């Protein structure tokens, strides 16, 4: 795929490659700099694997001070910097460019403090999302936002993309669970935003940083909220004869004021893919499936389920299947959370991330099917229905350039459809490079100019993750 461009590399940076590598070596401990050309190739992409650009070097600092030293150096010489967590971005947020230094946080993986009195955990940015919950699980707590890649993705990356997940319907996304950060500004200054309380005086810069895609600074530590685990939790499977009916059912559940912990949607192709990997016992004779998770005491769960079953009945639900054991519940979620990767068993894919008002869910599902069919491709839908956060996986053959181009065109049409339906381009994966040029479809020029002005206030030279988020045309001169 070559439709999406990158900024042209700066000749002044490329020509100084040897000195830059030498200087960075002096700033970092042994084993913390990758610079041999062949060793840089594995860093050329993330989970948006269609696009690839090998970087100039990869710095893997072990401390905030080293992060600051690298940033200060790159700032001084105008060298682009691309922050990277686990490289699991589906929008290309961590894809480098030829003149960039990748700043990888993968060596900063310590949990610094767990404070049950304040219900917070303070962790280094390279800690994986799931390992926060793992660390506090035995004491009855968890960290709520759960991107499907939570096994691997880092909290730093979650903050950059304001990541969501299946259980965010009830608990909110990253920004609703983030209390404070330690962050290094582009010139190497270390600042702290927020703290252990729910709000801090002054401008809500923490809110600004969360979701800024590595363009305002590099977060090295985060303080997050811990939540007490519910008394019980039960995923229940609801099978329907059509995607539209399942979509309409979701709208009615939420419309009735019922907020389960999660409502996840899978259509038939997605069910088949996930069942092949997880053998979770998903019903195979339905066109669409909702995984609804309720939690609380037995009485609370029963009460909520009764209302949901009633609503589902009005939409002709075909199968209602409660998980029979903790093991099966775990398999149901394992299958769901592995859906994207498991798609690799049958085809290459690109994953869309548009979000729509729930009243539009059925229409957009139908429209998505039409768009994909028009481009002669197949689609699997698996997404956070309760949030209206859709993830059509467009299936294609990466070894066929024409097929790849069709997939990309179909993706753009789907995202425009989401925006036109009153929704937005991205629910949780971020803009990255993938949706950058579509930002004009979402925002007016005035909106974009204001966002770029804020960005430039933090990074006047535009060296932090520069090819991302904002359309390449129409940027202010630097």
């Amino acid at each position: 795929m070559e439709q999406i461009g990158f900024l042209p590399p700066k000749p002044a940076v490329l020509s100084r490659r040897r000195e830059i590598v030498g200087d960075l070596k002096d700033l970092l401990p042994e084993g913390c700099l990758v610079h041999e050309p062949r060793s840089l190739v594995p860093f050329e992409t993330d989970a948006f694997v269609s696009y690839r650009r090998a970087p100039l070097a990869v710095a893997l600092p072990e401390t905030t001070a080293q992060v600051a030293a690298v940033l200060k150096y790159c700032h001084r010489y105008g060298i682009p910097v691309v922050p990277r967590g686990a490289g699991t971005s589906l929008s290309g947020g961590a894809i480098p460019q030829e003149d960039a230094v990748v700043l990888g946080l993968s060596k900063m993986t310590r949990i610094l403090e767990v404070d049950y009195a304040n219900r917070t955990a303070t962790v280094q940015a390279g800690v994986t999302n799931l390992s926060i919950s793992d660390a506090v699980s035995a004491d009855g707590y968890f960290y709520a936002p759960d991107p499907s890649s939570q096994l691997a993705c880092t909290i730093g990356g979650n903050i950059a993309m304001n990541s969501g997940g299946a259980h965010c319907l009830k608990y909110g996304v990253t920004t609703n669970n983030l209390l404070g950060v330690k962050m290094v500004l582009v010139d190497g200054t270390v600042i702290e935003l927020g703290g252990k309380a729910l709000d801090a005086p002054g401008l809500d810069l923490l809110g600004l940083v969360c979701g800024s895609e590595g363009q305002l600074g590099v977060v090295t530590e985060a303080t997050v909220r811990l939540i007490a685990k519910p008394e019980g939790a039960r995923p229940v499977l609801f099978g329907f004869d059509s995607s539209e009916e399942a979509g309409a059912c979701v709208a009615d559940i939420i419309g009735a004021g019922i907020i389960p912990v999660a409502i996840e949607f899978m259509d038939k192709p997605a069910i088949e893919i996930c069942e092949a990997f997880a053998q979770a016992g998903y019903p195979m004779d339905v066109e669409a499936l909702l995984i609804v998770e309720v939690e609380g005491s037995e009485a609370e769960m029963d009460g909520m389920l009764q209302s949901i079953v009633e609503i589902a009945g009005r939409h002709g639900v075909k199968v209602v299947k409660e998980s029979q054991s903790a093991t099966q519940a775990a398999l149901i979620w394992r299958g769901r959370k592995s859906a994207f990767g498991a798609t690799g068993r049958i085809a290459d894919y690109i994953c869309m991330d548009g979000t729509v008002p729930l009243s539009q869910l059925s229409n957009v599902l139908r429209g998505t099917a039409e768009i994909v069919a028009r481009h002669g491709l197949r689609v699997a839908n698996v997404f956070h229905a309760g949030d209206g956060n859709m993830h059509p996986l467009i299936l294609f053959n990466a070894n066929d350039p024409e097929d790849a181009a069709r997939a990309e065109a179909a993706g753009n049409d789907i995202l425009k459809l989401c925006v036109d339906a009153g929704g937005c381009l991205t629910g949780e994966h971020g803009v990255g490079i993938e949706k950058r040029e579509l930002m004009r479809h979402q925002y007016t020029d005035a909106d974009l100019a204001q966002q770029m002005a804020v960005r430039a206030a933090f990074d006047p030279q535009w060296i932090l993750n520069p090819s991302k988020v904002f359309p390449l045309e129409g940027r202010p001169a630097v």
Partner: protein
Amino acid sequence: MQTNFTPEQLADPHVATSEKILRKCVHCGFCTATCPTYVTLGNELDSPRGRIYLIKDMLENGRPADEEVVTHIDRCLSCLACVTTCPSGVDYMHLVDHARMHIENTYRRPFKDRVTRNLLAAVLPYPRRFRLALRAAALGRPFAGLFRRVKGLAPFAAMLDLAPRQVPKSSGSRPGTHPSVGTRRGRVAILSGCAQPVLKPQINEATIRLLTRLGIEVVAPAAEVCCGALVHHMGREEQALESARRNVDVWLREIDNGGLDAIIVTASGCGTTIKDYGFMLRLDPIYAEKAARVSALAKDVTEYLATLDLPEQEPKRLTVAYHSACSMQHGQKITTLPKTLLKNAGFTVRDPAEGHLCCGSAGTYNILQPEISATLKARKVKNLEATTPDVIATGNIGCITQIATGTTVPILHTVELLDWAYGGEKPAMLVS
């Protein structure tokens, strides 16, 4: 993900297989999270995804292996945790096997590495040579500290550290037929093994006692050799295939002369390899089918025991921390079976945290990569000891040797505990 091979390149069956494997990877990165070396070193190049990319780049460009690629492939434990984690079903095992073969064929290692590897390949798979080497190690032990300080000699220090203080005299399974006690219910072959009978003959002794007591005739064929896993993981494909062919012949002879219900393996590292004979010999027109038959018969001892309906036993007041060897849980996907057998036999079984992470043994890894291995061992021992066990049980000799050097908790093979629970002697290690 996209691949870039010419039809000429794909004419090589090894490249063709690897290309299919690479096409399945979607670069999602899930594998990084459960990879022991990524978790330890925090570098993409030391993760499965990074290695897959390095291999892809090397093969696509038809390049000989270079120092960088070799460094990162050598650091791979082949624990296959990534294979368990991978949602797309990427067959990393056969991809890294191909890469190791490519390295062996195209890269000349520095002199000291060549000496170490040649020595390991010439000694470990041969019980008599190995026993002699262990006796020599007893004399060399005082020099271990010195070796550790000299760059390049660390593997020798690791070898001396791992060598047992005393070398057992017996050799485990005597060649020949061990008749069943009472009515014969079945007939199996047992893999005698190479390093295991020298280090812990008790394991196969216990297996034979237990199986014959349960009415199973156990034959230990005389002409059998090392399964080939040790050299296979060094990329020495021809040597590995030679071992495989020889064993296939030996076992087929047993099938013809009396039939076999299973080939019992008591070291899960060997089990993973024997179950892969069918793949390893797929390009050999004479052996492909025979090897597939043998692979289908290979069973870990716990897999076979589970078919024998062992009765539930009275609870014993003994807490067992079960360490699942990587070759058991990731290589052979045997996860709950051994624990169920132990529970039924009356033991209290506990799972350590981070059970998916390798202990750092990994064949010759603890000798060739002593630093990473030591870090992983410390992490494993800490997690095992946190369960406050009376004894640690596992199903692989490599793990037993590795973990035993890091803890004072006794460590036994699962089958030694089962033998005791079903009428055998209490294992000597538990008699105080």
